[in-house]
């Protein structure tokens, strides 16, 4: 056998869950066993998720939020990196749908005793996990898990600098909620694009729904290789992405402004002269916002470094959708758990 293996997946069984707690019009059915990134998710599937998320949001806003849809299903969250909102969001989503939710983090699990990722995910599968929500500092860890699992479906909750598809979906949901159709909308992402899994997944999502992503930031933090040849190479997936180094230019007429967290490590690695200079050059602040994009929606994937990539006034200002993003994250993750834990999305039974 090859050293690197792919497990044969068992076919998805067609057991619909009868007591669906929510309703929505069924559009294109969800086609994926795993959610690893948005690159292989179709525009119709994105629409399905967002539509279902709307229904979930209604559930979340009810007095009695709990629905029995995923009773008897087990969701395991396996986090090798610290996280507040993503982890809580998945846990809450699972619990509101009545799934059994087991939370594992690297510290406190056998990973601390040196157990390999392979053995850990096989163990979780053997304990009958239906869905494995995984976050890992290494890009590709969810792919590795997916190719070694036969029964458990994998949701990528953030892998290294690669992808964070549920964040991108909740971002799309939030934008669509405020702006309607995203076709032709200018979505500005500012900051450390190279190291950002949020930016990468958002690029796939935004390009698929026809928005115009604009990237802005210091040249040391731009993913030049990702964008290389995008106007010349036929079939380049990021053909519609624009790059603008000057934030004043970039913010002009933006429909959405999304600064990304700037980590102190980037300065330590010599990629930035100082956080102070970064803030002067690229911070999204109220002066820039009022002058250049007075109607733009301000979003941030969190956690924020207020005073660095975003000023506190903007973060908590009238244009900010940052708290809404968190609520929407819950709705989007409920929608995904439903679509993935039950073949019919648990909605038509």
């Amino acid at each position, binding site marked *: 056998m090859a050293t690197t293996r*792919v497990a044969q997946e068992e076919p998805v069984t067609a057991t619909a869950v009868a007591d669906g707690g929510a309703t929505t019009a069924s559009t294109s059915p969800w086609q994926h066993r795993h959610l690893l990134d948005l690159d292989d998710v179709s525009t119709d599937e994105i629409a399905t998720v967002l539509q279902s998320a709307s229904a979930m949001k209604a559930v979340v806003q009810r007095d009695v939020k709990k629905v029995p849809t995923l009773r008897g299903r087990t969701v395991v969250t396996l986090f090798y990196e610290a996280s507040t909102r993503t982890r809580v969001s998945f846990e809450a989503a699972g619990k509101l749908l009545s799934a059994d939710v087991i939370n594992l983090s690297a510290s406190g699990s056998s990973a601390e005793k040196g157990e390999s990722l392979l053995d850990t995910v096989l163990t979780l599968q053997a304990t009958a996990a239906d869905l494995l929500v995984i976050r890992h500092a290494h890009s590709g860890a969810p792919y590795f898990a997916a190719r070694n699992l036969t029964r458990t479906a994998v949701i990528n909750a953030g892998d290294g600098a690669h992808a964070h598809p549920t964040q991108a979906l909740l971002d799309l949901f939030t934008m669509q909620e405020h702006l309607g159709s995203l076709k032709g909308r200018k979505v500005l992402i500012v900051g450390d694009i190279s190291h950002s899994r949020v930016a990468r997944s958002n690029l796939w999502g935004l390009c698929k729904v026809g928005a115009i992503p604009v990237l802005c930031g210091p040249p040391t933090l731009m993913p030049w290789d990702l964008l290389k040849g995008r106007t010349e190479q036929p079939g380049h997936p990021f053909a519609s992405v624009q790059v603008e180094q000057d934030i004043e230019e970039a913010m002009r007429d933006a429909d959405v402004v999304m600064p990304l967290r700037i980590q102190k490590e980037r300065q330590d690695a010599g990629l930035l002269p100082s956080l102070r200079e970064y803030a002067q050059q690229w911070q999204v602040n109220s002066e820039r916002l009022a002058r250049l994009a007075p109607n733009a929606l301000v979003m941030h994937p969190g956690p924020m470094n207020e005073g660095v990539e975003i000023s506190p006034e903007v973060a908590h200002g009238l244009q900010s959708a940052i708290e809404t993003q968190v609520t929407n994250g819950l709705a989007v993750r409920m929608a995904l758990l439903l679509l993935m834990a039950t073949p019919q999305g648990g909605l038509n039974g």
Partner: protein
Amino acid sequence: MADSTLIKGGRVVDPSQGLDTIGDVLITDGLVVSAGTIVNDAPKDCTVLDATGLVVTPGFIDLHVHLREPGQEDKETVATGALAAVRGGFTTICAMPNTEPPMDNAAVIRQVLDAASQAGLAHVLPIGCATRGRMGVDLADMAELAAAGAVGFSDDGSPIADSGLMRNALSYSTTTGLPVINHCEEPSLSKDGVLHEGWVASRLGLPGQPAAAEESMVARDIELAALTGGRLHVAHISTAGTLKLVRRAKERGLPVTAEVTPHHLILTEEWALGTIEAGAGELTAPDKYAPLTRSAYDTRAKVNPPLRTEDDTEALVAGLKDGTIDAVATDHAPHTSTDKDCTMQEAAFGISGLETAFGLVNGLVDRGDMDLTTAIERLTSGPARVLGEPYQSSIGTLKPGASGDVTVLDPDAEWVVDSSTFASKGRNTPVDGITLKGQVVKTIVGGRLVHDLQEAATKGSA
């Protein structure tokens, strides 16, 4: 009584003497008696091997092999590595010194040579450390290493980053006449990069190593060779830019040689996007713009230097053809399954390359990139030239008096790579399941048949 072997009726291709003819090769008492002529007066009791319809060449020489012994015997031993070598047609392999302990003293060199003679398969030529403990601080005892049998000096796997130290290594090595072999990679540029810095690494969100990390050190080393007169051999070159630097150095008449691996000639960065689920197939890279599958992050394609771009492979193939690159070397780097069954960032660098080398290189001949004689030259007299005398007269050639090392090939045979049948303990190859054209049928070392494909096949099915 004389012990003779006659290899009969093959197409004898020996680039060291411009030979390409139907004929026989006669070996007596371990040495070549004649090659390319018809032998009618063979000794009565000699062993006859029929090579009709096959190609008979000098035994291949691999300048760059990791045998892992002593210290990492779970990955490979001298014996398993030597068996993998002869299966791949290599009758001489140069063993890199990144063992544990490293080959920075005569005792470890002797240990490896002892293990090699016990295995009794390929000749093993040890490469000594360039610096003590491969630490890149003090020079190793080069004269002692040379006396113990070292054929060159290298800290392979670890670049000699300190320019002053590299200058001293090149200068001091002139007392031995042996080359300094550098793994060229400027560490402050390559950093924690796991793939080539390009579309694929960026797409996968992985840190990359820019081509400039290799090229800047090669440029430095060439100037240091010019400064000192020391012999520089550039290990596993991987970029079009490096090729240009080596070409220019050779035009200047500098004592610079270079090698390239089969994988850097043929595979590109896209292989990391994954072919695991594709299973058996052809030697084509995954589509770089296609959505990822769960085969992505294929650690079998993680190797250092990283697989580069199509522009690079094209330039390297041209450089191999025109002789800018002296030798094909496998950089055979066996690893255990645990070393590779993990995330890309955790995985070990390296490809188990001895048993697929000829099939891959012959693919270039098959698609018309170069003729068979040129390909054979880069596997025989090319690497012998890098080693210099006394090796040049005794290996990589079928001239009378040379060591009776012969490889018998079927360039038209198609076969599917199945790493589970490898003699090497390292089953780590991105071409597992791929159909290659060109197979090693027999390998003879010192007149002794040490690999016979038919026998190996029978054993395998037993």
